[in-house]
């Protein structure tokens, strides 16, 4: 049943204009970020004939690393977990909410009534879509980085080890998106609409990022730090930071939220993100499995 439903979900996702629009927006924003980073370095180093030093030297050095191989991998994966996460929420909300809004959930589940398999198939299809998006993002990133580095004279030191750890980085990036994706599916199922899915996902994201900014309070008291580190965002930040470190980056130079001294340890971060994912996934599953499937909303 799962395989059949996965094939159906993949066809729906592959043919959906919203999915392609999200991909185009993601790649466009990624390209824009890389072009801006390139201009920042160029201005800092006077390549354009103007010398503008708004960033410290070590910050510019970090950006130079992000524009070079293998640092570009970390940079792209960081983008996946910021703008990509928001776009994933929109895509997931549209995917399940659309089935409710159009009433297609009824026709689908009256033919393939295993609701658990339906939710699993939808989640896996979305993750596969995101995986393809990440791979395309990496390709675009590498292409722009090669052009930028040729212009700015940046060195490349790509090793076999970098390529071997790349799948780990990609898997971690997907894990970072997973709780938001599942929360969005749960919200869409609870509200039986795309709008409810978007609202649930985005509102939580805003709340979570806000709560994540409390991380610095952890410097005041270890107990406060432990409590704050049970929230999702500090653990997400920890995983994002690890993905950067995997490719020689130190993103704390550019973002205070990625200060390794106050963020949770890698094992805790992974565990907490998995627990949140299970919680949201269970909510989505329970809602879809137990609720009556009504007509178009």
């Amino acid at each position, binding site marked *: *049943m799962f395989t*059949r*439903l996965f*094939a*159906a979900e993949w*066809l*729906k996702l592959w*043919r*959906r*204009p919203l999915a392609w629009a999200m991909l185009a927006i993601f790649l466009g924003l990624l390209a824009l970020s890389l072009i801006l980073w390139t201009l920042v370095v160029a201005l800092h180093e006077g390549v354009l004939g103007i010398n503008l030093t708004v960033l410290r030297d070590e910050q510019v050095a970090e950006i130079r690393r992000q524009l070079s191989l293998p640092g570009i991998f970390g940079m792209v994966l960081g983008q996946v977990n910021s703008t990509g996460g928001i776009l994933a929420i929109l895509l997931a909300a549209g995917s399940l909410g*659309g089935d409710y809004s*159009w*009433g*297609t959930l*009824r*026709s*689908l*589940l*009256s*033919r*393939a*009534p*295993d609701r658990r398999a339906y939710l699993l198939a939808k989640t896996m299809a979305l993750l596969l879509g995101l995986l393809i998006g990440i791979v395309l993002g990496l390709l675009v990133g590498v292409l722009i980085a090669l052009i930028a580095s040729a212009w700015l004279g940046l060195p490349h030191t790509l090793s076999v080890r970098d390529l071997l750890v790349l799948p780990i980085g990609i898997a971690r990036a997907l894990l970072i998106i997973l709780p938001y994706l599942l929360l969005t599916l749960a919200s869409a199922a609870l509200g039986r609409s795309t709008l409810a899915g978007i609202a649930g996902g985005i509102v939580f994201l805003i709340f979570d990022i806000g709560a994540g900014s409390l991380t610095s309070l952890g410097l005041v008291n270890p107990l406060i730090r432990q409590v704050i580190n049970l929230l999702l965002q500090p653990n997400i930040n920890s995983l994002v930071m690890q993905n950067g470190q995997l490719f020689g980056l130190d993103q704390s130079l550019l973002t205070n939220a990625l200060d390794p001294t106050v963020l949770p340890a890698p094992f805790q971060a992974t565990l907490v993100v998995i627990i949140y994912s299970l919680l949201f996934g269970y909510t989505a599953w329970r809602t879809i499995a*137990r609720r*009556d*499937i*009504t*007509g*178009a909303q």
Partner: protein
Amino acid sequence: MSNQAPDVAIATEHLTKRYGERVAVDALTLTVQRGEVFGFLGPNGAGKTTTLAMLLGLVRPSAGRAVVLGVDVAANPVTALARVGAMIEAPAFYPYLSGYDNLRVLCRAGGIAATRIAEVLEVVEMTSRARERVRVYSQGMKQRLALAATLLPDPELILLDEPTNGLDPAGTAEIRQLIRSLAARGRTIFLCSHQLHEVEQVCERVAILKAGRLLAEGQVAALLQRDQRLRVRIEGDASKAIALLKALPWVTDVETAANHLIVVTPTSRAAELNAYLASAGVPVAELAPELSSLEDFFLEVTGET
């Protein structure tokens, strides 16, 4: 109940659905035989669609059971619905996909060979428009596509909810013909419709639901004879016949129609009535049970008049 007779397509036993205080379907017990064309009637809000949704495992019953093709739907929906095709409420499709791709999605989900798509599109005469996106389809085209989707699994049991909605008279006649041909091939058809004329033409048995309760169920012909009325045509002056008939203790009433009389009496008295009039010197040219229309019967039973 899952060990029921193999000739039963649908069996519900005290099937009930409550939404808080409101009872949408109230202890519905119904049996539909295999190969039967069964009409399921009721005014808006009677609980027809909720019953269909429970038969399809989409809505969980508050009490009672629904068994489809010998399998309890709640206990084993995958097996129960494997040979069921259903069209419930308005046609629902992905507007960004073509008609063909919408059917592909359903084929994949249902584990049906994609070769069926061309066959069912041919049946509903949608082959030439199948590659267009559904968002440009008219209501009638969506209705045809929904029928095609229903036929995809070559179902043994077909549940149809208002299948001719949005169709023009020609399209309606074609669907009626399609229902007949499916029935001729041994398919069981459970038809929910407001088109009482249509139901009367294609259904062998009907059930009438109101406010979730079953008001009547039976063979269409038997239900329409329920009034026990005889249609009598007299040669010549009918006034003598009226006087004679009104004198009979087992005749409740005699009504005068355009060229005949309607005698309200048990139809089993037809031969006796004929003999009585003949012996009194009143020649009877025609004598037959008077059938009311399904619409009349429906309005009477549901109190909608």
